[in-house]
């Protein structure tokens, strides 16, 4: 038969367990190693496509970083990006 003390002990154990789990999660996430792509969004996040949309393309976006001809990268989207591509984060140069 469960006593009130048993119930309180289980409640305390659950409470402390949850606190430790939360604390460990914070430490784990905060201490995750820096990855080159970790700060960037995936192409799929912003529906990147290799063709322009409505006359807008990465080549005229302020976040596009040109490399060799017809190639480049993006300041916020991971991977190789075409100057003729487009994504939802398109932000024209001022």
């Amino acid at each position, binding site marked *: 038969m469960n006593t009130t003390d048993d119930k309180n002990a289980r409640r305390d154990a659950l409470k402390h367990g949850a606190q430790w789990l*939360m604390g460990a*999660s*914070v430490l784990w*996430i*905060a201490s*995750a190693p*820096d990855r080159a792509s*970790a*700060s*960037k*969004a*995936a192409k*799929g*996040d*912003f*529906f990147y*496509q290799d063709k322009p*949309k*409505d006359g*807008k393309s990465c080549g005229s976006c*302020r*976040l596009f970083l040109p490399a060799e001809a017809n190639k480049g990268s993006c*300041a*916020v989207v991971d991977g190789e990006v075409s100057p003729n591509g487009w994504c*939802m*984060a*398109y*932000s*024209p140069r*001022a």
Partner: protein
Amino acid sequence: MNKILRTAAWLFVAAGGLSVPAGSAWALPSFARQTGFECVACHVSWLELTTVGRQFKLGGYTLMKPPAGERPVVSFASDGDAPLIPLAGFVQASVSHTSNTDVAAAAGTDDSSFPKNNKLVVQQASLFLAGRVAEHAGVFAQWTYDGVEHHSSVDNVDVRVADRYRNDSLDVMYGLSLNNSPTMSDIYNTTPVWAWPFATSGVAPAPAAGPLIAEGLAQQVAGLSAYSMWNKTLYAELGGYRTANGVFSILREGIDRSEAAVLSGTAPYWRLALQHEWDEGTQSVMFGAYGLNAKKYPDPTAPTGPTDTFHDLGIDAQYQYVTDTHRVSGQFNLIRESQTLDGTFAAGDSANLHNKLRTLSTKATYYYMNKYGASLGYQRIRGDVDAGLYNTGEAVNGSANGSPDSSAVILELNWLPWRDRRFTLQYTAYQKFNGARTDYDGYGRNAKDNNTLYLLAWFPF
């Protein structure tokens, strides 16, 4: 009305003066400085989040364009590298015209019940610390000066750690949110903290009743929740809220202890939402549900004895169509609250031990060229009659029949001559107010007497 027109002209001139350094188009400017995004990338029209805005929030506000050189410590420039201390702010100036301020002499009051009617007020000024603080950590912290109450205090706070797991078949964005208001952490614009209307009159009468989850605990509690987005389809969040005591009292800084809710134990909060995005991201839809169970002491200055129990359940849906030329969005939110008022009933302050309260909020928005917008909304509150809770005996804010029932249609027109300068003209038309259409307060006041015309100028920086 002439006074309102003169005020409108003044606001426009002021906007012109303030717009000179505005430069390009930003949303919460510190986030825009950090990412390089235009405001319309993250917002249908601020504050409503697009797919990009939701991704940014899920990522813990950490997405950042790499700096080209040494980052400045503080900067309000619209371009260049993100500053190390991500500061931003906004100012709201407004004027409100309530339809009828002629309160019956029998109520023992007069026009002084509406001291700010037809007068220009600096309604709100906010300062933000908002942006990435580490590889996996970000913050959104707002401090607000209330120009009506002449008081400043902490506003919305959301501190996040976030990460992501990705392989060929699984993509999970996950993290933790420490915040001070249930639904502050949510990524959709249906739930109370981020729901439309994004600004309303701070001086006009408003319905007395509202469920606890609808900002009844805002800036009074400390909450921690774990969230995750699975394959950009399923959003799940689980957390809990407690009284903001000890080190967590910083989350209610500036709110007097006697006015801040005191909870018994932890109030669990949960959220589930299914979303789908298609048509190259142009369209998105979401269906969801959320809930909060809280035990609250009726008197925060004497947190002992029986508590009031609130079971809140929300059902919501959202649709967005986003292009550069046309933007359409719609939101629906239904909240059902079951109250067991052991504490309030024992103190003799409610007539019933058990009460129900239901709210419905819907709205549709259209924007053309991100510059001209119109929104139409309908809001309704229905609940059990409880003379102890709602019949305060006051003119204007009371309810003679003890009913919380209110309903209103809200029409809003927006003009953004620059994308970070907003002018709003809003009209709220009440069909029912605090229980009745006519003579709701027992002093002869009708619901439509509270109809309010509201003109707002809103300038972020």
